[in-house]
């Protein structure tokens, strides 16, 4: 194991974490502002990927596909909020979970109905193909570096939006006291739709960027959704800063665990067994980390309303 390999793996962990952040930011925003558990967030991720793949296949341009993914996911999010979610704010979390779980099934089977059961094709844009040389002789794909860049840009953008703008002020106000800002004459309904659409657009963006790396298929959002929930639980529900730290932590733990644990076990057992045991433990690692963090800080690292 060399230093360049380690650097490469750390970058991989960062890239994975940043992608999780795009999912977790929307999820935590929606939970923080509206108090809603949205299981269908993974479906919006899938909508983004399918929109990008379809438009990219029709026009030949990944960039138009990316725009389409933002638009389609935001539109789907706004529509879902107006038609379904709006009726759930006053209900308890169990009703919300049931309704949004139903949405997952509707989105999945609807997508299969429109696009069929076979995965779609989506490749990275020509401009970002190839690799760059890192100091120390390692090579790293430009596209993955670009994903890291987009994630950092979104994190800064969200920070500015929430900390420095009037909309952000309203979002924060809505988080702490929704009746009061309603009483102050702010249209809370529109604000909620906006926040929901924003979270959906971020999920769609993540779906499109990841779709180019992976396969665009029905059900692609659910595994990511589970990790995104782990992230917001670790980071503190409702906190964007927590989502960022949590995502990077989960991304690095997951990637480095997968890579280092088999090596560690390889020191004192045969390679084939070390690979099996290491892989098994690596897949548990983030949940172990989550359990440890919750044991010491039950409200998460940066709880918003603590």
């Amino acid at each position, binding site marked *: *194991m*060399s230093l*360049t*390999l380690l650097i*490469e*793996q750390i970058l*991989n*962990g960062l*890239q*994975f974490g940043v992608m999780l952040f795009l999912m977790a930011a929307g999820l935590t925003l929606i939970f923080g502002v509206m108090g809603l558990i949205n299981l269908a967030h993974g479906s919006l991720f899938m909508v983004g990927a399918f929109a990008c793949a379809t438009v990219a296949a029709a026009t030949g341009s990944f960039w138009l596909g990316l725009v389409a993914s933002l638009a389609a996911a935001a539109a789907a999010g706004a529509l879902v909020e107006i038609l379904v979610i709006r009726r759930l704010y006053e209900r308890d979390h169990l009703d919300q979970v049931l309704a949004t779980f139903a949405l997952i099934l509707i989105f*999945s*089977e609807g997508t*299969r109905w429109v696009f069929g*059961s*076979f*995965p*779609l*094709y989506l*490749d*990275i844009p020509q401009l970002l*193909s*190839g*690799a760059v040389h890192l100091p120390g002789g390692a*090579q790293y*794909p430009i*596209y*993955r570096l670009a994903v890291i860049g987009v994630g950092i840009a979104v994190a800064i953008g969200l920070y500015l939006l929430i900390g420095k703008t009037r909309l952000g002020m309203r979002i924060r106000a809505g988080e702490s006291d929704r009746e009061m800002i309603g009483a102050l004459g702010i249209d809370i309904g529109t604000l909620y739709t906006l926040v929901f659409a924003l979270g959906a657009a971020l999920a769609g963006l993540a779906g499109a960027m*990841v779709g*180019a*790396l*992976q*396969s*665009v*298929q*029905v*059900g*692609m959002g659910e*595994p990511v959704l589970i990790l995104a929930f782990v992230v917001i639980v670790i980071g503190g529900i409702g906190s964007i800063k927590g989502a960022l730290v949590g995502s990077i932590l989960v991304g690095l733990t997951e*990637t480095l665990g*997968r*890579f280092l644990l*088999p090596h560690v076990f390889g020191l004192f057992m045969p*390679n*084939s067994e070390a*690979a*099996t045991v*290491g*892989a*098994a433990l*690596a*897949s548990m690692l983030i949940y172990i980390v989550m359990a440890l963090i919750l044991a010491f800080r039950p409200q998460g690292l940066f709880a918003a309303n603590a």
Partner: protein
Amino acid sequence: MKKLLAASLLALSASVAGNAFAEPIKIGMITTLSGGGAGLGIDARDGFMLAIEQSGNKEVDVVIEDDAQKPELAVQIADKMIQSDKVDLMTGIIWSNLAMAVVPSATAQDVIYLSVNAGPSALAGAGCSPSYFNVAYQNDNFHEAMGEAANKDYKKTFIMAPNYPAGKDSLTGFKRFYKGELAGEVYTKLGQTDYAAEIAQIRASGADSVFIFLPGGMGIAFTKQYAQSGVGLPLLGPAFSFSQDVLPAIGDAALGVKNTASWAYDLDNEANKAFVEGFKEAYGRLPSVYAAQGYDTANLILSAAEKASVKDKDAFRAALKEADFDSVRGKFSFNTNNHPIQDFYVREVVKDGDTLTNKIVATAFTDHKDAYAAECKM
């Protein structure tokens, strides 16, 4: 009264004129039609139904249910099919874990099960049954074929599979015949979609080739990321990672990849030509290996139905065992454990016009048998 008489006369003459055993056969098909693995089940079903349609046999009634790739659901459906639908035969399961949940209890109730895909080692060895016929392969076979084929060109292969029973069978199968050194052996999480960490390890391992068993979406994700990474070592795998159902989604990144299977669309025999043409015409796409296996399974059942009554289980089992049908794979016969003896081919992903598909480039094994037959006592 006259009408009734005429009708019964007609029925009588039809039953006399028809085939001696043209009696209704009820087949229960449990397969995966929703969720991420649906492409495989849909292909197996479409291949199966194509053979039934082409035969023109109106007496075959197929009950199809979706297992959503969930073992508990498959078990429920199987119970319903056996107890209330009273099916004579069962088939359709794609995944080994589902097969393990359904097959032993079905065969214990004297229902004949024919596998279109899954071939777990437990059912080929000590757990074999006279009522269980595998028309596809034993799970290790494709991997064994690649291990054998890799000996020719490679000395140091990096091998990788998901961490679940079929993944371990895969790497065991590969190692059983591969004589070179292993540059690395990695188990990934089942359903993993990001392989950056593994690709970095491959790059650093000093391997001269890479063998992967990653079916469905996992294979799509890996192959795309591998091509993007520019590692460029030759990529090998069983056909599952590069079958017709996933090739369009991988795109040109799959070109030149070598993979092993018992079938390819360009296999030169009459049955295969009729199958490929019929499939393209009926469904507007190229068939995959799963569709070929489904098609063969249906034809095997039809061939047995001409020789024996499905109500006479012993006679029907014997008729199945003869495997007297025109397989799209050419030669096909059953070993003592009711698993196939067949040839395995090395295929290469090529572009035929605008479509990506697999062409045969070599033969890996002739008349290959699985490694577990000796453990089967029946």
